[in-house]
């Protein structure tokens, strides 16, 4: 039996090749300075992906990823490290990279809420902000160890989110959307008028330091000077890996099954004895917890928090990432976050028009490919088994 299944596993090679190519491409894109080159590279990517799609190569890659996820996951981490090492002294590229990693963590949290349990959350940026403000306050006024600060950031996000539990559980559809939208506006206004938390001015956040190792200083390995953002890269990468594994495990466990059932048909799920409220609460709190941790770390990376960073519009960007990537597919989220964060940053010529373009792209996606770039595949109960 196991031998048969082993044989039926898709080969590793397409996945590895795809990863290697994307890594090389990413380095080229991040290193490119000339606008013409960047536009060329982006156009090339679109053409290449479309071509690969029509030649059936994309299908090979996704099968390879589906069957050999563990191995390829490790390769993906290695690839990220290669990119980071390549840009070891380039502050700005590393900052961008860290931003991508942390946004991915946050959208993974949203994914648990919306992608699995079907709980709408239009206040993603608000919970991200709660995390960031937590690290601002704790790092300024207390000596709480910074790793613990991250944890507290997550817990506070979950705790404050739990204030919304009653309305979230009681409402559906558009009414449920209002709950989180109202919360997003409320929180931003609250932060703005509250003097203790810096008002609209915002607050400085101290850099992270663990056991005397200050994250905000450049350091040297041998004779080569390293950007201090490399520190944050390591922590963010660890956080992302942990979150990714957690989300994947969750999805494949019976909890994931419960959440899927709940999303697809609440009434049917409750007929089968699922405690709707319990699983909605679990998903909502866990999602906010992850978003909060990512936010707390992001606050330290950026060194500054202000209410304007966590507006309703930012929450919308998070939801759009989810949609762009393909709801429920963690790999899709990684790709989508890269696109949403990196492309506008690199395309200086469209700097002013980026929000406009971004909105247009999402509209096109919704009209012509509503399932996202990498739609979530049908749940597979046996590895290697395909119907």
């Amino acid at each position, binding site marked *: 039996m196991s031998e048969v299944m082993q044989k039926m596993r898709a080969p590793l090679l397409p996945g590895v090749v795809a990863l290697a190519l994307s890594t090389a491409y990413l380095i080229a894109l991040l290193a490119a300075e000339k606008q013409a080159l960047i536009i060329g590279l982006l156009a090339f990517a679109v053409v290449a992906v479309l071509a690969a799609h029509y030649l059936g190569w994309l299908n090979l890659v996704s099968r390879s990823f589906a069957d050999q996820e563990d191995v390829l996951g490790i390769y993906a981490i290695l690839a990220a490290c290669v990119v980071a090492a390549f840009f070891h002294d380039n502050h700005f590229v590393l900052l961008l990279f860290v931003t991508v990693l942390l946004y991915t963590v946050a959208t993974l949290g949203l994914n648990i809420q919306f992608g699995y349990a079907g709980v709408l959350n239009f206040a993603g940026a608000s919970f991200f902000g709660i995390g960031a403000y937590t690290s601002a306050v704790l790092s300024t006024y207390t000596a709480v160890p910074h790793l613990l600060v991250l944890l507290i950031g997550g817990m506070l996000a979950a705790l404050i989110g739990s204030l919304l539990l009653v309305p979230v559980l009681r409402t559906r559809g558009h*009414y449920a959307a209002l709950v989180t939208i109202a*919360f997003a506006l*409320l929180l931003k206004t609250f932060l703005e008028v509250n003097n203790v938390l810096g008002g609209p001015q915002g607050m400085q956040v101290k850099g992270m330091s663990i056991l005397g190792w200050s994250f905000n200083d450049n350091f040297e390995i041998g004779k080569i000077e390293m950007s201090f953002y490399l520190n944050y890269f390591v922590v963010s990468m660890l956080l992302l890996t942990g979150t990714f594994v957690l989300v994947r495990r969750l999805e494949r466990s019976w909890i994931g099954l419960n959440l899927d059932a709940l999303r697809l048909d609440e*009434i049917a799920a409750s007929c089968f004895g699922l405690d709707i409220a319990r699983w909605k609460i679990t998903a909502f709190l866990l999602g906010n917890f992850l978003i909060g941790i990512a936010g707390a770390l992001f606050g330290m990376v950026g060194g500054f928090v202000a209410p304007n960073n966590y507006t*309703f519009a930012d929450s919308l960007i998070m939801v759009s990432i989810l949609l762009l990537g393909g709801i429920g597919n963690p790999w899709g989220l990684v790709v989508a976050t890269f696109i949403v964060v990196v492309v506008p940053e690199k395309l200086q010529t469209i700097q002013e028009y980026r929000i*406009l373009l971004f*909105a247009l792209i999402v*509209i096109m996606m919704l009209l012509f490919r*509503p399932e996202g770039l990498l739609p979530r595949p049908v749940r597979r109960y046996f590895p290697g088994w395909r119907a």
Partner: protein
Amino acid sequence: MDVGLLAQYVMNGLMLGMMYTLVAVGFTLFFGVLDIIKFSHGDVLTVGAFTALATYIGLRSAGVSSTPLLLLAMLVVAILAMAALGMLIARYLVMPLRSAPALNTLLITLMLGTVLRELVRLFYPQGANPKPFPALLPTASINLGQFNLRLDNALMLAAGGLAIVGLQLLLNRTKLGLAIRAVAQDEETARTMGVNFTAVVLITFAIGSALAAYAGIMNGLYYNEINFGMGLYLGVIGFAAAIIGGLGSIYGAILGGFLFAALQTIGTVALPFASAYKDVFAFTVVIALIAWRPTGLIQEKISERV
């Protein structure tokens, strides 16, 4: 508290409430016929206000200086343009997504709102800056102690009221209104009874968007300033008002609009520590209300059947 002062607060609240209501009514209309939330509604309001301003500037430079004529032209151009825009949105963005999940419609209209907002910001001359909006209504005022009643405010309040009464008559006394209500109640049955569904939807979107243009001009005349972001804020409040009132009910939208304005005004007067918390207060009450009445104060008369 001084009576004049109280009257002033009531007047402030009424003006706010009227603008919120005009927006909320739009949300409720769209929801009625298609069961969707069209989130670009607030930004249609912005575009309407900017269209009116452009009309004003254009006519002024063409030598028209009669105030009533200018105002009339602004109203006609903006309302017609937004009605057309509303129909386009319905036809090419909302109707194609009818079979998709509700979230998709919500997102696509949110993104459309962003597009409209950005278009104004980027392509209206100096669109990123707040624009002065002409005061075209007579500004005579009566001072009663602390209460300053301005003629233009009174006129706008009346105009807003007329618009809502007019809409109400349209819905309840005309054949078109009957068709709209029929579609809102049961699309399938309405179709079998010979109601042209697409036409009804398009007309409803035209009406709702025209109301947004109307509210946009009113907003401009009231604050004498418009900016590209004004619609986002008004849109969210209008949405909140429509929801707490109960989607699909005109009375709900009116109730919600004035309730929200009342909450903000009360927030200013009654919160002793800081009036700045008025929005925090208003939104907290909104969340509490929705927890208490999950489908709005005036509830939809449909129960979900398994």
